[in-house]
């Protein structure tokens, strides 16, 4: 290769590499100005798996969030020893469909795990999530005590905590919470779901739960949040028990903006988002949008 061609190639190559950010706007700058309205999909319908596919299509397909070769961790709520009908855990069909879509988008591996409140072997089995996710091709694993590490979380309040490293080593995180009543944060949606990625004496976090939720959500920063409100637990949360604690809402909300998902999720409980401390805090810190009118909402009914 001649020196001249080398320099030419170098110049063109360098230019072409630096161009995309210039054209598409620098990611850092984009994040600091939340002026762009987040795209949120709200879907209603009879089939939990169709809710997921329709919502993801409305957001532009799973390839918007997952790149080829990614290792993806899907974080459902598998917290309780309850059946899907009791709506204490994420709907297994929803989880399975998310796994399937990730794999179709070219994910190298999809892991599904959660650190439950009841014994993991029971919650994984009785929630139906383990078998459904496995059948969809995910690697379902119990929380591994050898993978628990104290990690600096750089939160405003929560500085460090024990986290399962699966969540840190993943290329992409997808949060798949279930919409439930909760007696402290009033509702438990996506942001609260991150307590399931923690170990240690996490029950202590309840003394400043809203702060912990905000710090955890911005630490984990999921690529996509999918709120399962197919069955909604409207009282006696976060476990319910009686079938009368459950309302069939048949809704699913998805977005890249996790605060937008939680804000719209709160409206299913007829709670204005600004009434919820964790959403107000997250919004003040510029973590995302919570006002419906400032979102770009795609509503679909199947």
């Amino acid at each position, binding site marked *: 290769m001649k020196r001249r061609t080398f320099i030419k190639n170098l110049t063109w190559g360098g230019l072409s590499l630096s161009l995309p950010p210039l054209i598409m706007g620098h990611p850092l700058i984009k994040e600091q100005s939340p002026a762009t309205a987040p795209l949120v999909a709200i879907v209603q319908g009879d089939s939990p798996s169709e809710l997921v596919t329709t919502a993801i299509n409305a957001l532009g397909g799973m390839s918007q969030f997952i790149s080829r070769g990614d290792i993806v961790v899907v974080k459902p709520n598998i917290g309780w020893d309850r059946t899907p009908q009791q709506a204490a855990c994420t709907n297994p069909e929803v989880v399975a469909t998310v796994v399937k879509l990730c794999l179709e988008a070219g994910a190298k591996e999809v892991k599904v795990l959660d650190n439950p409140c009841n014994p993991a*072997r*029971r919650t994984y089995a*009785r929630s139906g999530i383990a078998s459904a996710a496995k059948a969809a091709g995910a690697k379902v694993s*119990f929380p591994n005590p*050898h993978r628990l590490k104290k990690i600096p979380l750089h939160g405003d309040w929560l500085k460090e905590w024990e986290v399962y490293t699966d969540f840190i080593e993943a290329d992409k995180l997808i949060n798949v919470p279930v919409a439930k009543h909760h*007696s402290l944060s009033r509702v438990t949606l996506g942001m609260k779901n991150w307590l399931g990625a923690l170990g240690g004496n996490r*029950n202590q976090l309840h003394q400043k739960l809203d702060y912990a939720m905000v710090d955890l959500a911005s630490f984990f920063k999921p690529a996509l949040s999918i709120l399962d409100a197919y069955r909604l637990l409207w009282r006696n949360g976060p*476990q319910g028990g009686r079938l009368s604690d459950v309302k069939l809402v048949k809704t699913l909300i998805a977005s890249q903006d996790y605060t937008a998902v939680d804000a719209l999720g709160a409206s299913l409980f007829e709670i204005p988002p600004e009434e919820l401390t964790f959403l107000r805090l997250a919004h003040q810190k510029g973590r995302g949008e919570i006002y419906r009118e400032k979102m770009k909402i795609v509503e679909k009914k199947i």
Partner: protein
Amino acid sequence: MSRKKSKTYRLLQFTRITSQLVFFTLFFILLLQTRFPGKDYIGEVEIFFHFDPLLALTTYLASHLIFNLFLLSVITLIVTLLVGRVFCGWVCPLGAIHQFSSFVFKKLKWLKTKTKSTFSPKLWKYYLLFFLLISSFLTLDLVGFFDPFSFLYRSFITGILPALTLVFSALISLFYQLHLFTIGDSLVQFSENLGINTVFLQALGLSLLFLFVLLLNLKKERFWCRYVCPLGALLGLFARWNRLKIKIDEEKCIKCNLCTFECETDAIPYPPEKWTITECVYCFTCSAICPTGAITFPFKLSPQRTAMVNLSRRQLLVSSLLGALAVPFFRLSPDRHRASAKRIRPPGALPEEKFLRKCVKCGECLKVCPTNGLQPALTEAGPEGIWTPILVPRIGHCEYYCTLCSQVCPTGAIQELRVEDKATIKIGTAWIDKNRCIPWKIGEPCIVCEEHCPVSPKAIQLVETQVRQPDGLLKTQRAPFINLEQCTGCGICENKCPVVDEPAIYVTSVGETRSESNRVLLETLATGGDPY
């Protein structure tokens, strides 16, 4: 005259070892299977116990009830009547452990068999048997301390398996330190799937007891089987009329006495008139090692007279008397009169007196408990109740939809429950220590107990309360209150309380469904109505 060892008996001996190995493996697999099976109901993982006629008999005597499940033990008895104590020699997994360890000790030359000792208290086990039978008949069931299956399961469940699991876990850590993460991860998942409970009160003591019994084999081969095992004694009594008799070919016999020397029990093959039918476990060691192949065990249809253990009538009377005498001495503890707070029994457990008559302390419930909360009692339930199961919520709670302990109980001391009936059973009641509770004491928010309460509507309700602060000012905070009617006593609140050392909410046995006296709330009678 040929001087050859018997090939047939060599083969039989080999078959016997294979059989022992198979039954031990079966025992071990069933033991590992004694865990949450991924669905609500578990299979017959406790089947070994149902073949145990000693448990059948003592449980029957103590509780005056016959159980269908123990019908299987009739098989053991019939086999023993026909061919003697083959159960001890061919089936019993504890017998296999003793035989194997004796073999090892012998090979290592730790066993001093050279000096022919006169130490042979082979009658002990018969006296122990009579002691246990009489005390059982008088409703004191102590068989769980000595039954070979109870002893074996208990030792494995509380000591050996947990220790093996910890060693395995240390090995896994090693893989992680060597950065072999994939191997480490799959080993962890394997281990988590086995779900072995590793935390047990008295784990060390129970393991040491097992070790001690194992080390007794240094004194004499199969020490336990020869001198202690009450099940062996019971089967020995039944073996008396069996049809497999030793036959020594007088022409071939060179009177070397090797058979008697090598006999693993006290059966004394030579001289034949001394051979004791009640002691022989048909291991066929004597016929296999006989240098001239003189010993055979032909099956004879007509019973022949043979020697039997020489039980002294006086000793039997004394041991039976001791069995009777033991009853009042075991009943002096205060637990008989007043329930103890920490004696929280598993759901479905019979009323205490009936429970103690049936529980054989095998530890199956401790093994299957998905939270590790069931623990062997020491002082909580009196001397009769040592090693019976109690729930220690600080270690693990009682899972709301789980009835596994009731399903694996071999004697029905914990009555089998359907999952849908579980919610109707209270095992205790939760109480709040307001001096330690976060909202009650410092006025900070905490709802952990309420959040974990599995009952719907929740037995723990949050109520706005005024809390005096250290600066003297009042602060309003939502603090937990307990609805005694709703609370099932599962103990998850105690287990999850963030005040970890001495939880601010705790469960005591009061209010348990099975007791009519250990109550707080007076329930309206089923006939209902206010009489006034």
